[in-house]
């Protein structure tokens, strides 16, 4: 009996191990090249430095560090390596400018503070290389969080153009450039402040699939931030809330203006509406209220700000409190289900143990 159990365990272990080994192979079969870049060391007490570089440094400081560039693909690869300014992508989150391009936010030009020891790297499969770099913070730089990045980029993957294409046809060819970036956050001590302005709400599109709004926000502070809040649609008199969509806006870098797309899986019927946004960030709130939307024969039109101060601070507080309660309730349900599952599993094990004893 014991011997049979051992065999079962061994077979199970072998299958599990084979699955583990197969996963990376499957991962690489989709593309021949696979490369990346990451910090070589992490700093104690700064968990984020496992993933990206982060320094708290004074103006005028000069220091050295190193990045690890890897080829974990199956073919040799030549990679372009460069420093780039940090930018915020549409929908939020840190991204980096293309080679030689400046950004427009507070981090504009921060890539020039970084000097790399190599600009091109050739790596055989499985090879990795440490690339030292130097950071030179200008003496007169203002306080705040500046973001640059190190980017590795492979040559474009070209698709062959068919020279036999028909005369009255258009052939549409797409080439792909792949990049991997790692941020370098340079936090300059001094006065740091958070600021967020909701610049605009516009209706991007309304189709059979639903409605998508575009919300433009600007980080007016000198630290990066995320925001949470609500997109609220009311009737034209602001007497009835028609729909409330929770928002979670990812990182916006200082000085950047960025568009977030807010989808709603339903169309709006003909009529007049008011659109409002309330956001919470770093313990502060930003609002844009009373943007008019008129939908006639299914065609929406935005009419600019019609009314201000639709919601009192107390009413806005209720939105956030309700969201917190909903979230707590969800976790309560998950905890309850987990408890009963654990109970059922325990019961099953107890029952199976009893059966086994009877057999022996």
């Amino acid at each position, binding site marked *: 009996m014991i011997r049979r159990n051992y065999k079962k365990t061994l077979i199970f272990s072998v299958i599990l191990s084979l699955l583990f080994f197969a996963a990376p192979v499957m991962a690489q079969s989709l593309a021949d090249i696979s490369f990346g870049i990451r910090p070589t060391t992490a700093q104690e007490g700064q968990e984020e430095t496992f993933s990206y570089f982060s320094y708290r440094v004074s103006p005028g400081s000069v220091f050295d560090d190193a990045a690890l560039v890897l080829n974990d693909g199956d073919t040799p690869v030549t990679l372009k390596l460069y420093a780039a300014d940090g930018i915020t992508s549409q929908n939020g989150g840190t991204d980096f400018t293309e080679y030689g391009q400046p950004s427009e936010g507070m981090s504009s030009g921060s890539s020039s503070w970084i000097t790399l020891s190599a600009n091109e790297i050739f790596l055989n499969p499985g090879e990795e290389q440490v690339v030292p770099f130097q950071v030179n913070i200008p003496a007169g730089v203002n306080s705040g969080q500046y973001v640059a990045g190190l980017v590795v980029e492979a040559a474009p993957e070209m698709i062959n153009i068919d020279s036999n294409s028909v005369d009255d046809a258009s052939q549409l*060819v*797409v080439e792909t450039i792949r990049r991997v970036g790692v941020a370098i956050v340079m936090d300059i001590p001094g006065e740091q402040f958070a600021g967020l302005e909701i610049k605009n709400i516009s209706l991007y599109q309304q189709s059979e*699939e639903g409605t998508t709004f575009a919300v433009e926000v600007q980080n007016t502070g000198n630290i990066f931030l995320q925001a949470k809040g609500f997109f609220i649609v009311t009737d034209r008199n602001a007497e009835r809330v028609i729909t409330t969509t929770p928002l979670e806006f990812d990182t916006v870098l200082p000085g950047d203006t960025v568009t977030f797309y807010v989808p709603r899986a339903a169309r709006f019927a003909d009529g007049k509406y008011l659109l409002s946004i309330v956001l919470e960030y770093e313990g502060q709130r930003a609002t844009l209220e009373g943007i008019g939307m008129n939908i006639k024969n299914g065609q929406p039109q935005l009419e600019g700000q019609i009314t201000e101060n639709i919601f009192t601070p107390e009413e806005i507080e209720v939105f956030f409190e309700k969201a917190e309660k909903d979230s707590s309730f969800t976790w309560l349900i998950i905890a309850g289900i987990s408890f009963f599952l654990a109970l059922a599993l325990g019961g099953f094990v107890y029952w199976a143990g009893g059966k086994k004893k009877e057999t022996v």
Partner: protein
Amino acid sequence: MKKQSVWLAIFVALGAAILMVTHSAALTIATAPVTFPDVFLTGYDQSVLGTTSPWQVDSTDALDGWNATISATNFENGYGGIIYVSNLEFRLLAENISLVSGNPLLPISAQTEFIPLSETATKFISAESGSGDGIYNLLPEFRLRVPAETYAGSYLSTLTITISAGP
């Protein structure tokens, strides 16, 4: 029995060690070619769907979150003919993200509805700290409107896909 258990333990430990070595991976994204069918020009606007195979993100060691962005250039034929990039739309449905291995808390699509691409990068998938550290397949969708006034010829656009670790 004791001896067998020891061998089993060694076997499993070796497997785990090899797995860790093969997976001392960097954050990376593997893309597949995006292709469009030839469009026979009719004098009317036409819409065509792009085709691609699953892309794959390996974020095994990216414990502090990551995101990926996409940008594109105009389709140009080299003779002045342009199909503007605003005609190229993109989305990644939540159901088109699947786990290959690793953390079952999947990364999240940031763009589930079609939006036009531009030269400004748009985030299309991300993972927060505590989720999305593993290997994931994703199947994005592309849609291109070919305007009525398009001339025959071969048009080329460049997609730039960036995967990043940062705040």
